[in-house]
């Protein structure tokens, strides 16, 4: 389904624009943003979005704490971030203007709902005088519209009560912005029908408000002419706009189909991971089992139990949950069973900043267990990449019979981007087989089964209950390598510790090597992991467009690291590592390769801005 925008006269074409919608949590900002996103996606732009919710708890209407925002970056070329600073700010009330104005680029455009700029709201936002008139907005292009009034007017004859009509004002804004930036109209009207199906009054009101907003743009005398961003020349394919958590959930489903065994999600709600539970619980027709446990420990425990039963046991959580799951993950290491622990990172420590992004759980994933308990770690780099990262995590867990930590973060989880839907045929295979018969002959000459007898990759058989002849007991106490019987033998413990380390280390032979983007012959290499990919990529491209040489290595696997990484790094004289933590990957690289990896750290609950990295990289190149 596609439709095209009717083009009007005097439209000025630009290559990219960053629009930020802001208003009260109650104003339906996220909905408006989502819709503008879909329209732009269908229109063919490349884009990236960044929703920003207020803290988990609802704040009083009209206050700064209650402001909800949605930023979208649309372009006629490939882009990798939602944009550093918006060039257009849509502010539905004074609080929104106040809290977001500082982000706007100098001379940017501000679109406000004039009706909301009244005493009470100004006060709530902490304005003594009206910013629309006191010069606060000097230097900006300001476009005010009495959105509330015009919306009510438009709904007058629809038999919609004024109070209800008022609720549609965000659609007025959407209509106006759609006109200003030449977005298609039909698809949005259709969408309203579908979205509010059954609630005819609401449909009527929203359609009327949207059209009124659009008309207002056409008719009213608006400073600055109409703007359009042409479709991007993306790789051919069928596209859909997808968020990280949806992509991740679908990746898990795809992986279970690739492996041919059912998916079991044991989870306990927590921001920003809950949506994985929500999405998968809607997909039971894939044979997916979802279990909302009493806590995180039960969630991972249930997943491990399901894995013992032959399912793909998965648990999704955020930092606090990973901390709680630590002991059970250690058990999984000892049991050598598949298990995927998904950590959608958020601001820490402790409860921290639940709705803000951060990537400071790498060391927790690497070392957060007692004793020597190594686990593979996989990280996603963009919203759509969460799909493939999830498949890779399941692949390693199933093929190597080990718990695997999959790292995402709040920015990827809620952010979205167009995704060229892959061909199901081309998805990576996941190959393994359940043990079906004894694997040795007992002393008595009878066939016997040793649960810890290993194959050449040091992987033990996965014998699931229900299989005759293979009854066996496993547990968290040290086991004799081979027989799996409890063993307190010093020598055996040393062997098992070594094997557990080797099991993970050898995975390096079964993953893709690290690749270098940018200039392989540069002196400076930027090493990254996770969601910094977008900002690093853009920053590197900007530098290269200025003929500065920079290389970029982005790690999908944090443990083990790709076998060729050491030699690659040795080829550069400078290694810098931008991280949304205080330097965790840098420490791993320094310890592993003794390279003087330097950290570019940002721990402010927000992703890196391209400009920040561009500046940091330039500095690194210059000094």
């Amino acid at each position, binding site marked *: *389904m*596609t439709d095209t925008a009717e083009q009007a006269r005097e439209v000025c074409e630009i290559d990219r624009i960053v629009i930020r919608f802001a208003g009260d949590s109650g104003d339906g900002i996220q909905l408006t943003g989502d819709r503008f996103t879909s329209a732009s996606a*269908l229109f*063919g732009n490349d884009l990236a979005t960044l929703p920003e919710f207020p803290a988990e708890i609802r704040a009083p209407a009209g206050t700064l704490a209650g402001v909800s925002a949605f930023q979208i970056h649309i372009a006629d070329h490939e882009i990798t971030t939602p944009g550093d600073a918006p060039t257009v700010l849509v502010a539905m009330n004074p609080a929104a203007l106040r809290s977001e104005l500082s982000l706007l680029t100098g001379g940017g455009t501000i679109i406000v709902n004039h009706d909301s700029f009244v005493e009470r709201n100004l006060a709530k936002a902490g304005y003594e005088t009206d910013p629309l008139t006191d010069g606060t907005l000097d230097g900006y292009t300001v476009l005010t519209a009495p959105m509330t009034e015009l919306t009510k007017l438009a709904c007058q004859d629809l038999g919609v009560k004024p109070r209800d009509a008022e609720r549609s004002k965000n659609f007025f804004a959407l209509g106006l912005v759609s006109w200003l930036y030449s977005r298609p109209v039909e698809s949005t009207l259709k969408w309203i029908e579908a979205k509010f199906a059954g609630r005819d009054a609401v449909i009527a009101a929203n359609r009327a408000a949207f059209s009124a907003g659009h008309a207002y743009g056409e008719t009213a005398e608006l400073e600055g002419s109409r703007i359009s961003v042409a*479709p991007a020349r*993306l*790789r*051919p*394919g*069928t*596209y*859909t*706009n*997808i968020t990280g958590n949806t992509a991740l959930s*679908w990746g898990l489903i*795809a992986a279970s*189909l690739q492996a041919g065994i*059912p998916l*079991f999600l044991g989870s306990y709600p927590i921001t920003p991971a809950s949506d994985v539970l929500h999405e998968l619980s809607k*997909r*039971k*027709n*894939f*044979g*997916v*089992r979802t*279990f909302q*446990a009493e*806590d995180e420990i*039960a969630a991972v*425990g*249930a*997943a*491990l*139990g*399901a*894995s*013992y*039963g*032959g399912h793909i*046991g998965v648990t999704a959580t955020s930092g606090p949950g990973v901390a709680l799951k630590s002991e*059970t993950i250690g*058990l999984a290491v000892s*049991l050598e069973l598949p298990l995927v622990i998904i950590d959608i990172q958020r601001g820490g420590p402790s409860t921290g900043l639940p709705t803000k992004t951060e990537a400071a759980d790498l060391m927790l994933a690497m070392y957060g267990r007692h004793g020597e308990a190594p686990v593979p770690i996989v990280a996603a780099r963009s919203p759509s990449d969460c799909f493939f990262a999830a498949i890779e995590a399941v692949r390693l867990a199933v093929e190597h019979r080990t718990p695997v930590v999959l790292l995402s973060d709040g920015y990827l989880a809620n952010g979205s981007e167009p995704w*060229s*839907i*892959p061909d*199901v045929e081309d998805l990576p295979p996941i190959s393994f087989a359940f043990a079906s018969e004894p694997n040795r002959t007992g002393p008595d000459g009878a066939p016997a089964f040793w649960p810890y007898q290993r194959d050449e990759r040091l992987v033990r058989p996965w014998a699931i*209950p*229900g299989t*005759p002849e*293979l*009854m*066996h*007991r*496993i*547990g*968290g*106490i040290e086991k004799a390598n081979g027989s799996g*019987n409890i063993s307190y033998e010093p020598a055996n413990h040393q062997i098992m510790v070594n094997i557990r380390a080797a099991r993970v280390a050898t995975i390096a032979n079964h993953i893709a090597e690290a690749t270098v983007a940018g200039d392989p012959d540069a002196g400076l290499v930027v090493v990254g992991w996770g969601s910094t990919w977008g900002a690093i990529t853009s920053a590197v491209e900007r530098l290269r467009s200025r003929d500065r040489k920079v290389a970029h290595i982005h790690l999908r696997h944090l443990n083990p690291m790709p076998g060729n990484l050491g030699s690659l790094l040795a080829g550069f004289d400078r290694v810098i590592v931008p991280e949304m933590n205080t330097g965790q990957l840098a420490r791993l690289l320094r310890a592993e390769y003794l390279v003087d990896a330097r950290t570019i750290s940002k721990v402010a609950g927000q992703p890196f801005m391209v400009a920040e990295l561009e500046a940091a990289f330039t500095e690194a190149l210059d000094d």
Partner: protein
Amino acid sequence: MTDVPVTTKKDWATDQEVRWCPGCGDYSILTALQLLMPKLGTRREDTVFVSGIGCAARFPYYMNTYGMHTIHGRSPAIATGLAMARSDLDVWVVGGDGDLLSIGGNHLIHALRRNIDVNILLFNNRIYGLTKGQCSPTSEQGKVTKSTPQGSLDRPFDAISVALGAEATFVARTHDMDRAHMQEMFRRAHAHEGAAFVEIYQNCNVFNDGAFDAITKRNARQSMIIDLRHGEPIRFGVDRELGVVLRRGRAEVVRVDDVGIQTLAVHDETAADPAAAFALSRLAESVDVPTPMGVFRAVDRPEYAASVNAQIAMAQAADGPGDLEALLHSQPTWQVG
């Protein structure tokens, strides 16, 4: 379960040397179960024993079935996942009073309210055995242990009351000195669809020897064990001279002659309301008063995994079996090139 091969005790025993202290009550429980399993009409490969940590929790190593010896307190949660994923299996959970009522208390009560189809055997020796003698949530107040040299200050739980307060559908109590009674309770638990909770008074002869002697010693039983039988007036005593009445919402022990048989409470394990069963559970106030043994409660309620499977079936009926291609295209899409 068609044509299940005939097995004997030794088919259900492993080659692992049993490592409990000589004289431990755990031995008799193990024997009782190993002797019972061949009679339950189930296969060894379809049976899984899941445990946490503790002396009791070593149980799985001695059963020639599938088994998971997991971590302290988590067995009910781990078994929940296994039972949800594999409703075809016969899943048992074994643990001590510390494992299932202290660190594992929350997982236990949630497994009970969800009615997960597992048979939970609580070996209650009123002590921490494996860690060599600290008090447990069932240790009596004032008990002197390694961690409570001046006596424990904690009011103990009554495991049966806790289970009934947590919406359990099957609740029973037995003890390690009576093999036939244990086997009957295990058989009933196994037959029950959903979570079956069985508390077993078990003697730890090293760290809490004789904890239950007042009740379970052969010569004491008749007068100290209130034998619960469905549909019958609740009577006990050497000459069945004692009985239980339910008055003003609570259970009281009376002399049958004083009240007359007709006023005795008639035990109804199938009562939808757990109140009467709860009232009975309060009789076991301490270890030296007549204590009810047997099935307190056994009611029907949909077993969890069955409902899970039903939702999957419904989803497939509604949306058709999962089609990845369709899923990936389920949001608005557009073509490029």
